[in-house]
């Protein structure tokens, strides 16, 4: 009978969202256990911070001040550029970019299923976290929140085999989708045609299509491009810019409420102006693909066919301009 119960549970959990509450309660009950497992590493960091030599701290402080000065300097230019950008966008009558409010969270050092790339964050809906929220660190996109537990949440990293990020190449604005491979050092871009303009060393940034990830954050650098004759698509491997296996503190990027409401309205009628003006390309019919792709689909088969069909067009449109 318990076997039947277990099977029924699995089916319900796979099919729909009825079990979210049960899972939430269980997870909240087990959170102290996760904190306890996390405690030794937290204590270790606390010890190294507190027992560090004074001159080392002074040195670190000086280094951080230098860094802050540099970043501040760049930020001044950024303010001017942002204002200019807003004016241009107003002229072009296109949508505003995502704001930059963010919430800092910590990743607990707790292992989950070893075949999936999931992590536990110490913030939940009580702190304003919501499912689907994008997570970045100092160097790039990390992943997105998949499950909320009230006082903590679960997130999927971009390298999980079920995850996909809509990206564009900074150099030429070519859009594609980066899929996780299950390897922390590798993303793959399987939907680039053989004549696509992509080289090793290209920086990929999030394109913002689909509304899940804000546009313009670095995702990965292309490492290897291989074109086997006879294959219609290139084999492109990229390495995530964020140090996914070493990060501790991450930023949860909060899109303004208007942006959160936007994607469902977009999907039936994809508006070409924002997409075209953002990347400077002829409008390609990719919004449907992008809206389908960034949500972490429970089954892989749901993600891939939706994503596979449309992105074949942007590469063809790219070289023409």
């Amino acid at each position, binding site marked *: 009978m318990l076997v039947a119960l277990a*099977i029924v549970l*699995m089916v319900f*959990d796979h099919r729909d969202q009825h079990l979210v509450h049960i899972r939430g309660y269980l997870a909240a009950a*087990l959170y102290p*256990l996760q904190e306890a497992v996390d405690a030794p590493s937290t204590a270790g960091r606390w010890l190294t911070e507190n027992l560090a030599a004074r001159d080392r701290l002074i040195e670190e402080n000086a280094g951080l001040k230098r860094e802050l000065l540099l970043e501040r300097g760049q930020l001044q230019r950024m303010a001017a550029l942002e204002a200019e950008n807003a004016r241009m966008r107003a002229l072009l009558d296109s949508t505003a970019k995502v704001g930059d409010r963010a919430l800092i969270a910590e990743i607990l050092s*707790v*292992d989950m299923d070893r*075949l999936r790339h999931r992590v536990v964050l110490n913030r939940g809906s009580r702190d304003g976290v919501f499912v689907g929220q994008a997570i970045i660190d100092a160097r790039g996109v990390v992943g997105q929140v998949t499950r909320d537990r009230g006082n903590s949440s679960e997130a999927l990293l971009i390298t999980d085999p079920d995850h996909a990020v809509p990206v564009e190449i900074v150099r030429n604005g070519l859009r594609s989708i980066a899929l996780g491979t299950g390897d922390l050092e590798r993303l793959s871009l399987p939907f680039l045609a053989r004549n696509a303009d992509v080289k090793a060393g290209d920086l990929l940034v999030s394109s913002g299509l689909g509304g899940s990830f804000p546009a313009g954050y670095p995702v990965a650098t292309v490492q290897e491009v291989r074109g086997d004759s006879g294959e219609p698509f290139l084999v492109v491997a990229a390495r995530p810019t964020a140090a996914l296996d070493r990060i501790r503190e991450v930023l949860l990027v909060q899109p303004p409420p208007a942006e959160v409401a936007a994607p469902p309205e977009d999907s039936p009628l994809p508006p070409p102006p924002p997409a075209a003006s953002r990347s400077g390309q002829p409008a390609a019919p990719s919004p449907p693909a992008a809206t389908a792709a960034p949500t972490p689909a429970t089954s892989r088969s749901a993600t891939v066919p939706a994503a596979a069909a449309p992105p074949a067009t942007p590469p063809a449109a790219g070289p023409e301009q």
Partner: protein
Amino acid sequence: MSRNRTSPVMLWVTLLGALALAIVPLPAAAEPFRPPFLTMAVIYWTMMWPRLCGLLTAFIAGLLLDVLHGNLLGQHALALVVVSFLTLRFHLQIRNFPLWQLTAAATLLMAIDTFFVFWSDGIAGDPTGGMARWATVPAGAVAWAPAMALLDNLRLRSENRSKRFS
């Protein structure tokens, strides 16, 4: 002895310990070789205290592991219920085996556990991980003898204490 008066506290303490060990961070290279601690604990207790630790305990423990691992609710619950049933069916024989045969039997049960989780992963369309996921079985076989020594120690202590108070 009409009623087993041993207290189940030790059982739940070790099960929680096994759950904690199942999520302790390991270096990526050692990750595939993490022994299935919870399965080992469930096999041991079902074998030694069949009255206290049965199918329901295995089910609850499996459910908790599913929540901690963030995978489909019920995967480990199903696998552990099956393992616990098999252990319960044969516990009188397994209990009297010499250590090496006991290890072999436990390894077989752990392989069954891994197989059920693998199977449900495959049906649900989750990544199945290929051969790498079977590495936990030999790791569990290696860890069985020391784990059993530890659990024996805890069990005898707890049984002695309950005898003293009753």
